[in-house]
């Protein structure tokens, strides 16, 4: 029987203990993978962002809009293909807990600016031709079981309907899309800017403004130049603007989570610390019990290095099995977890680098847990080991 077989036998000598240790390592690796994937999901939209779309917002506040004349003036800049309003609506569907993004957009320009938008149901013509039409992401369609033709009432928490606070805005689902890249969220509800603007124009204390403007530029144009030209256009008012690349635009939302990624790392560290201690504990117990066996093997002529390898192999075997189960669990539950957190982190995915990190950690834990028992066993004197009682 080789070292490997003997290691396996030794681990199975205490099946409950080995199982519990492997299971706790499984839990820890699963937790680390999911926590890290949540953090990477925060920034996913920024990393896959389009390079031909720029975003214009008020430089003063997220809550302040820009005059309606802005998109037209921006379209006159050299290198700009099109510019259109992208207006946060903030409506409520049935209950405030049903949170998802709704945006008033120019339908034709939206479809031209977002090549990653893939039609699943309905057609571009229906969306463009229906004034109250809504184009919804497949994530939303699944969550609320929406089909093409469904009537969707949204109450305007941010923009009350002019006919009264209790009057809902009526929409009709005319299309369902999916995204071929993470730069487009599959939980978004798009509808006509014209419907939004014309409804609000009636009886309003303040003029209708536009919250964000999407600018699509020629691929060959320098984004930096266009950005500074747009900013310069309104340097002295009426509303100063801040033009960013799409990746900076997405990153600003990620940065608002503030210290969350840091907290998650601290938690991950605590999980790791706890689990390393558990593995060390198990390996120390195993080594103590095997002292007598080691004495016998040494007296039979097995070299010290074999003893070292025997204990280290056990540690790697134990951690490898537990860690592999944890990684397997994390990968297996990826779809379920994505649905669980889809409203907040639609881009939940276990990236390759997370998998690599998990494998590296498993190896390191195996080494850390096994090294002390392995060294001790290789240094034991034959006579001391033999005289030890189990």
């Amino acid at each position, binding site marked *: 029987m080789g070292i490997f077989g003997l290691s396996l036998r030794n681990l199975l000598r205490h099946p409950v203990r080995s199982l519990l240790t492997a299971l706790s390592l499984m839990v820890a690796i699963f937790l680390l993978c999911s926590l890290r994937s949540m953090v990477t999901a925060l920034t996913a939209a920024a990393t896959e962002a389009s390079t031909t779309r720029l975003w214009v917002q008020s430089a003063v506040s997220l809550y302040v809009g820009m005059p309606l004349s802005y998109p037209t003036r921006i379209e006159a800049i050299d290198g700009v293909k099109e510019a259109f309003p992208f207006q946060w609506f903030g409506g409520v569907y049935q209950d405030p807990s049903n949170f998802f993004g709704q945006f008033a957009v120019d339908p034709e320009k939206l479809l031209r600016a977002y090549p990653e938008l893939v039609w699943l149901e309905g057609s571009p013509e229906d969306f463009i031709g229906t004034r109250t039409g809504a184009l919804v992401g497949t994530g939303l369609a699944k969550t609320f079981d929406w089909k093409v033709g469904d009537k969707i009432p949204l109450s305007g928490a941010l923009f009350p309907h002019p006919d009264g606070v209790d009057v809902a805005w009526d929409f009709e689902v005319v299309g369902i899309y999916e995204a071929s890249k993470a730069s487009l969220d599959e939980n978004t509800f798009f509808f006509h800017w014209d419907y939004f603007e014309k409804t609000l124009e009636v009886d309003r204390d*303040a003029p209708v403004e536009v919250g964000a403007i999407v600018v699509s530029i020629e691929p060959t144009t320098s984004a930096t130049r266009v950005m500074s030209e747009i900013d310069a256009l309104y340097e002295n008012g009426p509303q100063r603007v801040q033009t960013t690349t799409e990746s900076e635009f997405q990153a600003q939302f990620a940065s*608002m*989570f503030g210290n969350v990624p840091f907290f998650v790392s601290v938690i991950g560290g605590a999980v790791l610390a706890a689990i390393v201690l558990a593995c060390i504990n198990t390996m120390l117990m195993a080594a103590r019990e095997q002292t007598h066996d080691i004495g016998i093997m040494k007296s039979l002529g097995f070299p010290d290095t074999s003893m070292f390898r025997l204990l280290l192999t056990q540690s790697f075997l134990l951690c490898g099995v537990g860690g592999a189960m944890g990684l397997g669990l994390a990968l297996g539950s990826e779809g379920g977890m994505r649905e669980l957190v889809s409203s907040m982190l639609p881009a939940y995915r276990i990236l390759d680098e997370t998998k690599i990190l998990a494998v590296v950690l498993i190896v390191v834990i195996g080494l850390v847990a096994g090294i002390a028992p392995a060294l001790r066993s290789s240094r034991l004197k034959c006579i001391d080991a033999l005289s030890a009682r189990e």
Partner: protein
Amino acid sequence: MLVPLSYNLRSLFVRRSASLLTIFGIAATVATVAGVLALQQGFASIYAESGREDVAVFLRPGSTYEGDSVFTRERGAYLVKGLQEAAVDEEGLPLAGIECFLAIRRFKLSGGETNVPIRGVQPATFAIRGDEIEIVEGRTFTPGTNEVIVGRRLTGRIRDCDVGDVITLNTTPCQVVGVFESGGTFDSEIWGDMDSILTALNRYGPNRVIARLADGVSLEALAARLKEDKQAPAKVLTERAYLSSQTTALSLVLKFLSGFLGLIMGIAAVFTATNTMLSAIAARTHEIGILLATGFRPVAIFLSFLFESLLLGLLGGLVGCLLTLPINGIETGTTNFQTFTEIAFAFRVTPSVLMTAVLFSLLLGLVGGMLPAWKAARLTPTQALRRG
């Protein structure tokens, strides 16, 4: 007859390396849960403790947050004038004022952008709040000018928030002339003159009205009256109720997070405790045999090992609490995603956090000790004496 407790204490000490590893494993779990709870406590307390019962907040019907609420200046003034329910000052004027509110883009000193609330107030706000607002550095702003004062928790975290700095609102430079402290959410805000700020930000109307209620006024009656008002319908609630309604979502997420982490890490900690106890029992099979042979009942053996496991849990819990204590008072900031503004607060390791931590650690010890203690109690004296 029960097995003497000193037996367990000694055996924990004899197997101290395994005991310590288990204790620290439990401690790490408990500390994580306690840390997240301390974050939630710090966050919730800043909202709950600063809201006043005798101050009423008036919002546009249908809005839940002052950022969403809009009044025209005329409607606001009409509300203030007709407010018989408000307390009055020495000159007989109602203690009520209009405020404007906006979350503005600011940059953190540590890098990155965040949303800082700016509030434009009238002199009435200071009259309503009395001593609540304390200037800790510099002086307060002069009404009618572009001067502003900043909350204490902004200095040192947000750019341009020291006395003498200039904050530019759209195109208007505003001089920071003082730092104030209130102990609540206002400490993360910038304050200035309402009319100047509305002009600087090019806003059309203020966002809310606040008033100090006269003694004996029923808030329900006031709310009912203004709900039906033709000229300026409004939603009325106490400041405390308003502020605590702003925390529900984040508090829920943090409690869910601590529960989720507690469950997952708790499972791992229970496994470790079980392992330690199993090996403790395997090493002491002979002793268990002696105990049984001298007349101790299996129940006593069961309780003895369960106690030992509980003790492991408790020690882990205490170490975990010690690990958590240093974070008490550390200031941090997070975005309250209900309001999308950044709020600064300190971790608070409250007695209830520590209590939860200790109870959790005992639970870990209890669950972890069940199986091993059961195994130990099932041994027969002859079996046990023969082994080991």
